[in-house]
């Protein structure tokens, strides 16, 4: 990994600083406005009964807001791709964790409370073990 020599001459124009990209103010304001609009949308949609879709729509809008915050407020749009990869990798692991725990919980049956896993269903072992 060859490092470029550090450029210590500070450039004071509004798009570039010595060390990193500077976000233009109009962009920050636009993103802020968009976030407010989306917040309003999510509250409005919650008052309409769409059944199961309510949850997914709410999550989608939240996802859109999150994307705006991550890309523009958190600078990821202009950042090294590796940092974005870290973040996406993190999300993949989160989905792995929640996904498996959720699907397993839904498939579990009530007798799990009694300690009878579905794999042991129908297996009868006499007390003291098989003779």
């Amino acid at each position: 990994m060859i490092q470029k020599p550090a450029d210590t001459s500070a450039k004071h124009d509004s798009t570039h600083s010595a060390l990193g990209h500077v976000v233009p103010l109009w962009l920050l304001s636009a993103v802020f406005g968009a976030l407010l609009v989306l917040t309003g949308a999510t509250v409005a949609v919650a008052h309409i009964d769409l059944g199961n879709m309510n949850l997914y729509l709410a999550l989608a809008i939240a996802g859109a807001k999150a994307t705006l915050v991550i890309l523009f407020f958190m600078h990821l749009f202009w950042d090294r791709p590796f940092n974005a990869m870290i973040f996406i990798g993190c999300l993949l692991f989160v989905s792995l964790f929640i996904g498996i725990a959720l699907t397993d919980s839904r498939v579990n049956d009530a007798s799990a409370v009694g300690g009878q896993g579905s794999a042991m269903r129908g297996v009868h072992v006499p007390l003291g073990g098989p003779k």
Partner: protein
Amino acid sequence: MIAKSQDNDNYLTHSRGISSWIFTLDHKRIGVMYLISVLVAFLLGGLFAMLIRVQLLAPTGLLFHKTEVLKDLVVYKPYNQIFTVHGAVMIFLVLIPGIPGALGNFVLPIMLGAKDVAFPRLNLWSYYFYVCGMLFALSSLVLGAVDTGWTFYTPYSVQTSTAVISVVFGAFLLGFSSIFTGLNFIVTMHKLRPRGMTWFRMPLFCWGLYATALIQILATPVLAITLLLLILERLFHLGIFDPAYGGSALLFQHFFWFYSHPAVYIMILPAMGIMSEVIATFSRREIFGYRFVAMSSIAIALIGFFVWGHHMFPNGQSAPANVIFSGLTVLVAIPSAIKVFNWLATLYKGSIDLKTPMLYALGFFFMFSIGGLTGLPLAILPTNFNAHDTYFVVAHFHYVMFGGALFMFIGGIHYWWPKITGRMYNESLGRLCCLLELLAFNLTFFPQFILGLHGMPRRSAVYSPEFQYLHVLSTIGAFIQMAAFLVIGAYLLHSLFRGKKAPANPWGGSTLEWRCSSPPPHDNFKETPTVGMPYDHHGLKWDEETEGFERKEKELVLHA
């Protein structure tokens, strides 16, 4: 006490006084502090192990007798407390922080030719979190040692009157210690490698630490939230894990094992990294299939995230989940095997030097292979139902974690001891104790496979009389191991005072840490070293005068 290396200033003599250690930012000093703390914890965990083995000498229990009777249930509370402390101390205070904290901290920046890790202050905080976590966890010994097993399964961990919150909060703090170390290592390896050291010219110990750090970053936070929720469950009956309040005990197990399975790879991956270093140095060869070994470390780290359910097969997990976890668990054996075969191939036609670290490495082949292979019957569903919660599992994990990870920790300590302390230990004693350890270890744990298959359950203070002879063999082995460890401690301590002064490169290692003096100077290198291929032993010659290996800089083969 510890001799100066002639007139040279080194990291030990650079500044004096206890506050220069407490507030140090030097990764080498932090590594030494970790090493001392981890070894103290190991002594404590070992003591509790001896109590377990003494208890199990007699079928009705030699030390502890029943304390509670609940209808038809007989509860051996003191024994439950003993094995819980043993497990928690060994896992959270020794194995998880051990190699990364003690050896990784010391060696990694030097191996990279860097002056320090990326965030030295964070490194120090990592150590403080370790100490605080240790204090909280051990305070439970006074407040009411926990009797739930190191796994803290609900609902018992919610109901027991022992000091669960102390231990769990201690483990919570230890988790942060682990996260900070992992974060530091990842950034160090990404940003502080010298020019010329591409990823595939990095030593394999670094690859091992990198893979470990990935797991530390991704898995440990889930442990943190699990423990936090357990504390809230105990205090407020939150209801998420306790069936009596509408929760699910199996959910706790999902949460817990999502961390704790990758955690075992935190324990073994750095040890495998040390294996690569030791095998390369003492065969005087480059590691066969370097890229495969490097990528296998990453593969083990990643696949290790997909298999946590294999701890829960008979616990009520759904059948589809059981099948998926079983298949993926078998898969994780593949990269492990790739590494073992590559190391073997490295030995072939190498110039083998049977020094103490090499003996530990050779022992690892056997210990880890047995441990790994016995994981397969546990991965396969029908055989798992027979072996789950029996001594078969106990023997399996002791072979991989103790015979594998811990042995390589000791081997690594012996390997880098001259570098860290500037002293050589007694080589004959080193070899003798290693062999003794290996034999005694097998005597302790091999009978436990047989015990398990014959039905002896784990975590049980008493047992059926026909198992006694196997338990006696096991306990004899444990006592011999204890003696061997005491001798190891003795000769290592002795070397600090009377050991021969160590040269810069006593073993003929080719990685960068052998280019600086033993002990290293405060800034690691007096002149910046030249980077070549890793494991290039070309030109290393034994110098009678310094009793170490030397190499002329211009003999180093450089590649663009």
